[in-house]
């Protein structure tokens, strides 16, 4: 091998010491952001830590440290370290794999870490046969060459597994690349195209639609190129009152035409044209939609009403209103309804939202349902890098499995004539899990004996 003197910067970045140092720095500085709450208003830090300290925190970008110049810089150095280090070693691996085992000198075999000897009563020609067939039987593919005083067999397995480590390293770069591709800051500042990657949200009242969203950090308006309508929002509860489901029924409108109707729930987002919508919050309004029907007639009505206001439905011949409410926060859990047709006592009863009440009145039977009006809070994300990230993650698991559990094993058998017949000198090595290979090696040696 030729040795060339390298630039000291290159040798620094090719070194594992730097990698260890950077891993240590990344791990220890990451702690800061878990102790100091992130992404609050400047006033928060002044109140909590005092003026001087808050100023220092701002200078060091601590309130948003995982996006700060110095933390991203550390990650960049880490990536560079990985690239240079791997780029320097991969050619060495390729070179060492190209080196033919048959070129080994028989004397060198005695220096191998794993060795063994077998004496066979056969003449060398029969011994060659035996070595060849036993190795093939055990799944090796031996080749041979005739040396001065004997025949050398060589076989290897798993040479490619030496690349497992580099699959892992490469996967880290792919994940970082995916993170960059999906970063809204990169899209805004470098690509000058905020629509390329963004995270934002929209509060969409039932019945309304939107063709844009607002980004989280900058509040920028991003046009979707299509519209999303919220048809309804519902919350379901468990018996103990804990929320079970938040669901938005939505319709996608492309060019004004409805193209898709779906429900969005937590853990069940909707993706359309690269934009993914997540159920993230909701806003109850103190407004109710009442649907009324007079049984046996075609008379129906649907109106938006507020609490404590009397509403008249002259066609149906009744008046009604909400006279009391049971609420949990801003969410209405039960409503007390008052309804009369001006004949006899008014009907007064409690009703859950979305439940149907059947009300018998002297003038007929009425069906009433009432529901609270909501706006659904949707988060909208466009992240073109996520598939790179997922692909990188998968590659990492594959690479780790290769690097940890598979090894490159080489096996040599040198056959020389001896007084008893033939002498077999066995040698082998493995780049990992030597103990495991020793067992395989021992089995082979036994199989070669008669």
């Amino acid at each position: 091998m030729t040795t060339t003197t390298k630039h000291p910067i290159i040798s620094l970045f090719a070194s594992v010491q730097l990698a260890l140092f950077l891993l240590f720095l990344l791990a220890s500085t990451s702690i800061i952001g878990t102790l100091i709450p992130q992404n609050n208003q400047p006033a928060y830090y002044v109140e909590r830590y005092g003026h001087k300290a808050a100023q220092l925190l701002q200078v060091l970008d601590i309130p948003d440290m995982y996006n700060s110049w110095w933390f991203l810089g550390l990650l960049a150095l880490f990536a560079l370290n990985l690239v240079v280090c791997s780029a320097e070693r991969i050619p060495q691996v390729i070179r060492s794999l190209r080196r033919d085992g048959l070129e080994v000198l028989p004397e060198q075999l005695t220096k191998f870490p794993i060795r063994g000897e077998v004496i066979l009563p056969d003449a060398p020609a029969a011994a060659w046969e035996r070595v060849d067939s036993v190795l093939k039987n055990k799944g090796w593919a031996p080749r041979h060459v005739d040396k001065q005083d004997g025949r050398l067999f060589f076989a290897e397995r798993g040479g490619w597994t030496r690349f497992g480590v580099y699959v892992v390293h490469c996967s880290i770069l792919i994940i970082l690349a995916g993170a960059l591709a999906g970063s809204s800051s990169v899209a805004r500042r470098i690509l000058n195209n905020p629509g390329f990657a963004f995270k934002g949200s929209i509060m969409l009242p039932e019945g309304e639609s939107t063709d844009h969203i607002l980004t989280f950090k900058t509040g920028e308006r991003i046009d979707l190129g299509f519209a999303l309508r919220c048809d309804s929002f519902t919350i379901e509860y468990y018996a103990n009152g804990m929320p079970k489901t938040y669901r938005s029924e939505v319709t996608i409108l492309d060019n004004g035409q409805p193209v898709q109707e779906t429900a969005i729930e937590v853990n069940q987002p909707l993706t359309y044209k690269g934009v993914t919508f997540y159920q993230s919050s909701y806003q109850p309004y103190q407004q109710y939609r009442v649907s009324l029907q007079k049984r046996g007639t075609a008379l129906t009505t649907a109106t938006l009403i507020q609490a404590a206001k009397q509403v008249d439905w002259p066609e149906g011949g009744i008046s009604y209103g909400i006279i009391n409410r049971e609420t949990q926060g801003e969410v209405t859990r039960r409503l007390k309804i008052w309804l009369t047709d001006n004949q006899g006592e008014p009907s007064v009863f409690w009703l859950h939202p979305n439940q149907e009440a059947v009300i018998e009145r002297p003038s007929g039977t009425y069906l009433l349902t009432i529901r609270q009006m909501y706006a659904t809070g949707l988060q909208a994300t466009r992240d073109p890098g996520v598939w790179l990230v997922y692909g990188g993650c998968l590659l990492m698991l594959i690479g780790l499995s290769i690097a940890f559990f598979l090894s490159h094993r080489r096996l040599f058998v040198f056959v020389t004539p001896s007084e008893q017949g033939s002498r077999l000198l066995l040698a082998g090595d493995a780049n990992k899990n030597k103990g495991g290979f020793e067992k395989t090696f021992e089995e082979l040696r036994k199989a070669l004996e008669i």
Partner: protein
Amino acid sequence: MDSSLLFGITMLAYLLATACYLGLLLFKGKGIGRLGMLLAAAGAAVHTAALGLRWYESYQIGIGRAPLTNMYESLVFFAWCITLVYLALEFRFKVRIVGAFVMPFAAVAMAYASFSDRMDSQISPLIPALQSNWLIAHVVTCFIGYAAFIVATGLGVMYLLKESAGDREGTHGITGSLPELKVIDDLIHRTIIFGFLWFSGGIITGAVWANEAWGTYWSWDPKETWSIITWFLYALILHARFTRGWRGRRIAWLAILGFFVVLFTYFGVNYLLSGLHSDG
């Protein structure tokens, strides 16, 4: 019979197993060691049945979910993983004495889950964000990883104990029954490798889950940050060993440091810092 009774039996079995293993360490009786192993294995079997029963019970009360989603359940599951990882190690490498350094962790985890006021052992329904199969995959993979790191910690302690006794005690003192330093060192390495692979899977499934639920696979909340810190630490250990040739005492100390980082990631973040994760 209900699952809490079975969990109680499990805890008892683990405590007794721990006692037997300590007996093995102190008196080197082969029989007591075998008894410890049998108790640990029987405890693990009951434990498995208890987890299954609790899962079934959740269906009976109309909730129907895997028993993996609050601190109590995660701690119980943690103890289960520790025991299984230990038993696998024992069967694969025939090192019974390791139980003396690992089963105490499983016993303490079960006891803490049963007796701490912080633990709520009720089966409560899942809030919408936690209703995801990715969550199950996330918890299972993470905990196998954590459990392996705990086993590595036990091995680290064992290494240091053996080393501090040196040749002085030979095969007579307490440490006489421990495997050779080289063997322990190799076991630490293998256990960390195993844990690292699973823990990587844990971080990845967690990221996929977060992306399904919130549209962000990584948001640097304290739990996520501490898990990546843990991951960096073990990556560092692997590189120090593989490329710098660190062995023995240094790796043993790092494996013990790993215990505190894992513990903080698992508990400390929930109790001392604030974030999204409620379950561990």
